[in-house]
């Protein structure tokens, strides 16, 4: 694999992560903020809307940047293993930032014209906890990958370059 291929691959995945961790959540929360169903306006009343957007943007940027580094690195390399693990940890923080910002207990108030009819509250804390458990297992897996890449570096490199015997050496 060449330099250009790696960079292009990194950019593509960075774009994917920007879309999934920043753009889509941003649009969702913005849409939810002033959604109307059958003329009844559901207003996102939480005070920390800006806070949510801040944390989404902050961790989304970090995740996208690490995703670029991760996916532009060669396969089974130590840097790829390192940044994959960092990315997973940042993902955990990103998910938890929803709770931190109050997004795990979303309260929608139903406002009809001027009168406040009532509210809908969604508590997704348990789901987030479950998601965190799954992420814990993912971190273990990535940690195993990292140590595998680190300990078997020589054999991995031998295998990688055996495939390219007689091929390109771009050094």
């Amino acid at each position, binding site marked *: 694999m060449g330099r250009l291929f790696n960079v292009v691959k990194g950019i593509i995945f960075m774009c994917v992560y920007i879309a999934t961790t920043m753009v889509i959540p941003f649009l969702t929360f913005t849409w939810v903020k002033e959604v109307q169903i059958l003329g009844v306006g559901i207003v996102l009343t939480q005070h920390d809307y800006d806070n949510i957007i801040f944390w989404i943007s*902050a961790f989304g*940027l970090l995740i996208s940047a690490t995703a670029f580094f991760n996916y532009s*690195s060669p396969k089974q390399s130590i840097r790829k293993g390192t940044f994959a693990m960092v990315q997973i940890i940042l993902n955990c923080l990103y998910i938890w930032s929803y709770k931190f910002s109050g997004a795990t207990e979303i309260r929608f108030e139903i406002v009809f014209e001027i009168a406040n009819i009532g509210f809908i509250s969604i508590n997704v804390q348990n789901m987030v906890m479950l998601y965190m458990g799954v992420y814990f297992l993912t971190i273990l897996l990535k940690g195993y990958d990292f140590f595998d890449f680190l300990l078997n570096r020589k054999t991995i490199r031998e295998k990688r370059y055996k495939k390219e015997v007689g091929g390109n050496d771009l050094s």
Partner: protein
Amino acid sequence: MIILAVDFIQIIADIVAAILNFLNPIVSPMGTFMVYWMEYVLQFFPQNDLIVYVSIAIAIVILGLIVNIAWPGNKRPGFLKKVDEVEEKIERKVEELDEKVEAKAKEVEDKVEEKIAEIETKVKKKAKKAQKKAKDLEKKAETLEERAEEIDEKIKKKKKEKIKTEELEEKLDELEEKAEKLEDLAEELEEEAEELEEEAEELEEETEELEEETEELEEKAEKLEKEADTLEEEIEELEDDIDNVEKELDKTTDKE
């Protein structure tokens, strides 16, 4: 529509709740651990300052660009380069050796072909000779077979003779044993004859002695007869004397 949507959400909520209830005892402790350390870590993250995160993200991207352009993973490691060099050298040597081997093989093949031609001619000649020899050998073999048959017959005869000689030998042995026994008997008889002769001699000597003794005894007997005669005469005289004495005694007794 709202009612339908609420029903749909309710179904999804039930499914999610079932999954959560099932996985909750396994995954929740892990989640609480994660929450614990994440809450601790998040304290160090700056709040309300997006520039820091943007700058960190840009730094990571630039670093990724530099690192992955500089080391794209195509460069062969040092130890593999050395291996390549060694392999190239080996390949070269192998090629050289192959060329040498091919040249030598050609030379050897030419020589072999020449030798094969020579050998073929020789073989043909030898084959002819061998055929002649074979015929001769066949004849010889026939004569040898005949001889062998004769020899076999002779051997059989000799075997029979041997058996006979063995029997004769056995008989001879027996006769020898008998002769030995007879010799022993003859010796014993000779010894006995000698002993008898000795005994006869002894007896002769004894007879001579006896004769001598008889003569002496005869002489003594004659002497004794003479003495007996004399004694008889004396006895007669004595008897006469006794009669005379008795007569005188009677006379004396009568006188008294």
